[in-house]
């Protein structure tokens, strides 16, 4: 059966426009990628509140900071590799140090950027963003969750980083899903192993868990949309129950969700943790699905890997 898929980016742009209709303080900035990031949807409706600063990501972030100083709520978009990479120091020293109300919605994160290759595949952005004080980091897994995360960011007072992939993703959450930034989401109960994931890999982990079930492995799935502040209790309680944890993410195994989970478990429940992600290497060109498979992040590759790890 073919699943319904939706674009997270388009959902982001649509949600922004909706928010813009009710909150005049919302402004949007982009750096010449508004068609790709989908901020164009907002720009078309509210040209006076949209600022395209051109190919200048440092200027993008600090201009947003200045707008926040005057009480505006800036949403800033560009590709994740430029947002979190090139403009990192602007985010640290101007946005976060001044505790400004800037929302960074970075698209084209992870290996699934695809054909553009390694230069455009941000595999370090979660690591870079979560190490900055006053920054909140969200990695939604489908369009509905993206929508809820963007709405939450508009209400929350402070800096927020939302990581949005290029790819369309299957619908996971229904209309009743309510996003709570303090709580991780238990997708499936299980007793043999805790599979902890977020973003694009959640759907792959759900499918892998079904295959594992057929082979007699009862996996628990914890979805962690908010990497910072991380929901310690849900993760620790799951680890206490299963005594074995595997993290899965479309990000480097250094500094991302896997690292965050290791940090809290080593202090609170030191069970064995295996991290599945991009193993300290750059990506390459290819289509998104091929790349996901090549780097071992599709359901079938995950199933084999997890069986191996549990032996």
């Amino acid at each position, binding site marked *: 059966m073919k699943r319904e898929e939706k674009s997270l980016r388009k959902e982001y742009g649509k949600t922004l426009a909706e928010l813009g209709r009710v909150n005049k303080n919302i402004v949007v900035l982009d750096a010449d990628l508004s068609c790709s990031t989908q901020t164009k949807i907002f720009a078309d409706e509210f040209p006076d509140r949209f600022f395209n*600063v*051109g190919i200048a990501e440092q200027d993008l972030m600090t*201009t947003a900071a*200045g707008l926040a*100083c*005057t009480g505006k709520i800036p949403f800033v978009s560009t590709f994740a590799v430029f947002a979190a990479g090139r403009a990192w120091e*602007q985010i640290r020293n101007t946005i976060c*140090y001044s505790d400004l109300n800037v929302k960074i919605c970075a698209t084209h994160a992870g290996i699934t950027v695809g054909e553009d290759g390694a230069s455009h595949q941000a595999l370090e952005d979660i690591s870079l963003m979560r190490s900055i004080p006053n920054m909140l980091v969200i990695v939604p897994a489908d369009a509905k969750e993206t929508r809820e995360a963007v709405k939450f960011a508009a209400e929350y007072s402070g800096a927020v980083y939302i990581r949005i992939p290029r790819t369309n993703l299957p619908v996971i959450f229904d209309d009743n899903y309510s996003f709570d930034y303090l709580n991780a989401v238990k997708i499936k109960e299980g007793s043999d192993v805790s599979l902890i994931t977020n973003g694009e890999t959640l759907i792959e982990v759900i499918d892998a868990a079904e295959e594992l079930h057929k082979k007699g492995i009862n996996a628990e799935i914890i979805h962690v949309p908010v990497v910072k502040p991380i929901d310690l209790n849900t993760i620790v309680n799951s680890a206490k129950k299963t005594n074995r944890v595997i993290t899965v993410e479309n990000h480097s195994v250094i500094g991302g969700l896997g690292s965050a989970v290791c940090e809290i478990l080593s202090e609170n429940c030191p069970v064995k943790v295996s991290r599945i992600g991009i193993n300290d290497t750059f990506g390459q060109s290819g289509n998104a699905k091929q790349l996901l498979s090549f780097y071992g992040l599709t359901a079938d590759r995950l199933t084999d890997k997890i069986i191996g790890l549990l032996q």
Partner: protein
Amino acid sequence: MTAQLSEAELIEIKAVSKKLRREILMMIHNAKSGHPGGSLSAVDILNVLFTKCMECCPNGNKDSDYKNRDRFVLSKGHASATLYAVLAHCGYFDENELMTFRKLGSRLQGHPSKKMLNCIEVSTGSLGQGLSIACGMALGLRLDKIDSKIYVYMGDGEIEEGSVWEAVMNASSRKLNNIIAFIDRNKLQIDGSTEDIKSLGNVKVKFEAFDWNAVEIDGHDEQQIFDAIQTAKQSDRPFVIIANTIKGKGVSFMENQAGWHGKAPNDEELQKALEELK
């Protein structure tokens, strides 16, 4: 033709500048660290700006409800001692607090911190970011139809940062005529002469090429500073005041010495400097 500062005003401004210079040196001496050279070159401009030109908050505090205030961004955040001394002089906080500068727990951080000190508009210290922040403020105020100015104070070495020129283009392409920038052209940076390290050449021409209005002045001449700001307020586009200054101005042995960029005077040097600033 702009208004002339009266003889009495000039005498008063000069006296305040001397007092500010003494305080700056005592703060840096007391902290045993800081940036005397670039702080002293900025004194006359910040003094004239804050005491004669800016619409500040009536009660001395940065009341966030007072939206019509002019904004000030110290992009060269290492001249923080000058900003603190001026703010204290204008009544934003008690002058006694100046001696906590750079000490543990002080609101007067080494580089200005918005979270620590409410009257600071935005934290600065990492060079090359102030003008972009000002662009954002300018856009925000324009959306709210607030007709106040944003003053940005940059160092000349600072404009070696490429991000400054991103902001220069942003400001002119949006005709942000509510931005008034200063370049503290003391021609020295930490490692030596700006012209030896990364020649800045004719800064005025460079800004004009980016569709800014620009004037070049003596940054220690109070009347020229005042006139330039009055002219800038009438500009139809972003305006830059290139102020030729002397690093370490006012202290003979610090003037034009790159070595005094980031070094505190010892007891003897402080006494000698204070003698000169009597």
